[in-house]
């Protein structure tokens, strides 16, 4: 057990170290970005004196190292700073957006992950026969078409022609869960199509790899049904690679859905980030970047931890 705990502790420490390094990268990256916040706020006609005053007030003249550590110190206390353009507390405005993003990602994941794994299992069961080929063809086609195109096609047929679901998916707190889900059903469906293929194909490949093992032959010679063999004997041994791909896709659902948010005008983090990049609102960009990085690192850490724990040799040492 101690070896397991040691490995887990190492992995978590590594994740935290990574997050720290990423914070340096994000800070450095936003500093070397072209453009000037003061200019952006005051407009083209501002006098040089006014610009200089605003820069001083915003603390833009301090040395970068000092700015980094005061930013980091604030982060550690949960203070993301204030927005340069709106003057609001960033943590407050982000939390609502982040909640929306996680809400959409959660429901897309709830549908797509089990579906992808089930399709992967079916593809293995009917390997090289028509169900396998059909699943592969459909999922590959859906990942190959750009997501905004799928989104617009879906809007045209489902919202405009059939009028089953709205195309504008703005949600608010006064809606019940059912109303919210109905509102975001189209983005969920499109996101599912986008992430399905990757996870399905990894499930299929990982299980097929395990299917070569001698213990699968043992199971066959026990007279088990093919699906029982795949589910009970092959799948538990292919969890590690599958979880890795699932986590990568979950991360994508959180940090990579800006196009979908724009198409469906969904009030998520992606749109928020893009808005503030164009306004040169650096503290907001930094906060968003750091949150995205934390999600990415966190989910990958979970994948690694699951892989470690899934290994019976580590879970049950001699």
């Amino acid at each position, binding site marked *: 057990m101690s070896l397991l705990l040691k490995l887990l502790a190492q992995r978590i420490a590594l994740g935290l170290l990574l997050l720290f390094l990423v914070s340096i990268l994000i800070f450095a990256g936003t500093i070397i970005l072209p453009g000037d916040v003061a200019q952006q706020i005051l407009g083209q006609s501002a006098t040089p004196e006014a610009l200089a005053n605003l820069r001083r007030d915003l603390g833009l003249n301090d040395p970068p190292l000092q700015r980094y550590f005061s930013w980091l110190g604030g982060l550690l206390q949960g203070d993301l700073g204030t927005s340069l353009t709106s003057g609001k507390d960033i943590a407050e405005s982000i939390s609502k957006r982040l909640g929306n993003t996680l809400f959409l990602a959660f429901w897309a994941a709830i549908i797509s992950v089990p579906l992808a794994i089930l399709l992967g299992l079916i593809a293995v069961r009917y390997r090289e026969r028509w169900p396998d080929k059909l699943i592969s063809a459909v999922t590959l086609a859906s990942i190959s078409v750009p997501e905004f195109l799928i989104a617009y096609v879906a809007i045209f047929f489902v919202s405009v022609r059939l009028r089953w679901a709205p195309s504008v998916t703005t949600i608010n707190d006064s809606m019940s869960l059912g109303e919210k889900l109905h509102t975001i059903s189209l983005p969920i469906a499109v996101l599912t199509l986008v992430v399905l293929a990757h996870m399905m194909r990894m499930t299929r490949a990982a299980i097929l790899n395990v299917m070569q*093992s*001698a*213990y699968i*032959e*043992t*199971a*066959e*010679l*026990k*007279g*088990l*049904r093919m699906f*029982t063999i795949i589910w*009970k*004997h092959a799948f*538990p*041994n292919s969890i590690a690679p599958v979880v890795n791909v699932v986590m990568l896709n979950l991360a994508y659902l959180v940090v990579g859905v800006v196009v979908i948010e724009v198409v469906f005008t969904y009030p998520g983090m992606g749109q928020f980030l893009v808005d503030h990049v164009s306004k040169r609102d650096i503290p907001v960009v930094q906060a968003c970047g750091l949150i995205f990085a934390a999600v990415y690192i966190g989910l990958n850490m979970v994948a690694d931890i699951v892989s470690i724990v*899934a290994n*019976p*040799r580590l879970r*049950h040492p*001699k």
Partner: protein
Amino acid sequence: MSDKLLKVRDLKIGATVYPPSEKPHDIEIVHGVSFEVEKGKVLGLIGESGAGKSTIGLASMAYGRGGVKITGGEVWVNGRDILKTSNSDVRALRGGEVTYVSQSAAASFNPAKKIMDQVTEAAILQGKFSRKDAERRAIELFRKLGLPDPENIGNRYPHQVSGGQLQRCMTALALCPEPDLVVFDEPTTALDVTTQIDVLMAIKEAIRATGVAALYITHDLAVVAQVSDDILVLKMGDMVEYGPVDQIINAPQEDYTKALVSVRSIEHEEKAPTPEPVLKVQNVTARYKGTNFDVLKNINVELHPGQTLAVVGESGSGKSTLARVITGLLPQNNGSVHFAGRDLSKDLAGRKKEDLRELQMIYQMADVAMNPRQTVGTIIGRPLELYFGLRGAEKRKRIIELLDEIEMGESFIDRYPAELSGGQKQRVCIARALAAKPKLIICDEVTSALDPLVADGILKLLLDLQKIEDVAYLFITHDLATVKAIADSIAVMYQGEVVRYGGKTDVLSPPFDDYTDLLLSSVPEMKLGWLEDVISNRKMESAGN
């Protein structure tokens, strides 16, 4: 047809082959084999690799591995032809009426599931027993098979028990659903010799106690003689001889069977030590980096020019580690290695080209010791270029000489390793080692992966070459029959120490220490009733338990 449990009539089996430069096509690998097994009897299927014995064993469960297809004949189990029944009927047969024990239990157990769940799975799913009854029966079988702590061993995972124990668990897995027939496919081949006889005895007892019938597949006639009632000898998919075990062992009719029975009959006179040994290992102690225990403890051995020192022991005894120290792959922590009158540097980087040339190695797996993209000529020619600077016609002449020495000849010079048989590959490796004109060749289990008759040929060749080239061999093996055949002196290793060392006659003559006694008595003999004699006369438990 119902009086016999298993009745196989004119069974033909085909497979799709994918030769390197041809189109894939079907070939027949079993050509019309017939035999039968009565209730409670054991039939031994014996033959070398490629004889089709595993394929035939699996055919009795209507199963073909990979691209293997049953193309003709009948397989009757309990009065019905299983090649003509439905899928669901075949599933009921597998794991119910007929079960299977594979060669490598370590690979055949699912690493992610507890042993108990795997042992009882078939019995429960086939509806033969409730979970509770199946578990009770499994514990009973664990006890019968001599497993330690039978009540709890089922709660462990496969990696938590030893290889010998896992092989017994596999036998329990096969016996749990109360089958009528068990197919044992080389169940003891992968085990150490001392562990093998315990498992063999456990299997024999279990067969006797449960009254189950069995197909026992092996390449080792001495092993099969201990457990079988009848024996079927196979060669390249053909039946050679089929009869009661007594007749096959004591009065074989066919030449091939006679060859199998008389295998391991090489005689070799022990040579006297010379004044100046070619290799002198003094007080060597070694451990692997990052570990805190000595794999080799104070080893002292000598080897004389033109002689053979056999290093014997079970897996984990440190015999291959000794070879790594001598070749410089693992620098020793203490002690020294003298070779050809000089001290060898501890690590490989400090050794001179002459040291490397005079000390050659041959490995167990000839397959992976050669570059598959190089021809035999290139492989043997490489040391000729490297050490002697030979080029062109001169090099070719020497390659052909070497090919003649290994009894293969010039026609092989442009072949690739994939086109050679297992024995031929090992011969090429021997020629490559000889090309350097070494004083010492370290042979690491060089015959272990080969069929007995082929192995015999390799040993004879090594002995002949020793006479011609006056080369010394450090011969690492777990097989005492090989040792008897070729050694001049013997070092018996056990847990990193040399427990017995001396001339062959001395080491193999009583009085023995307990470990050497165990090792010697565990070598299967071609004699009925040998197994029971050994078990009743043992002084020491084998390490694999």
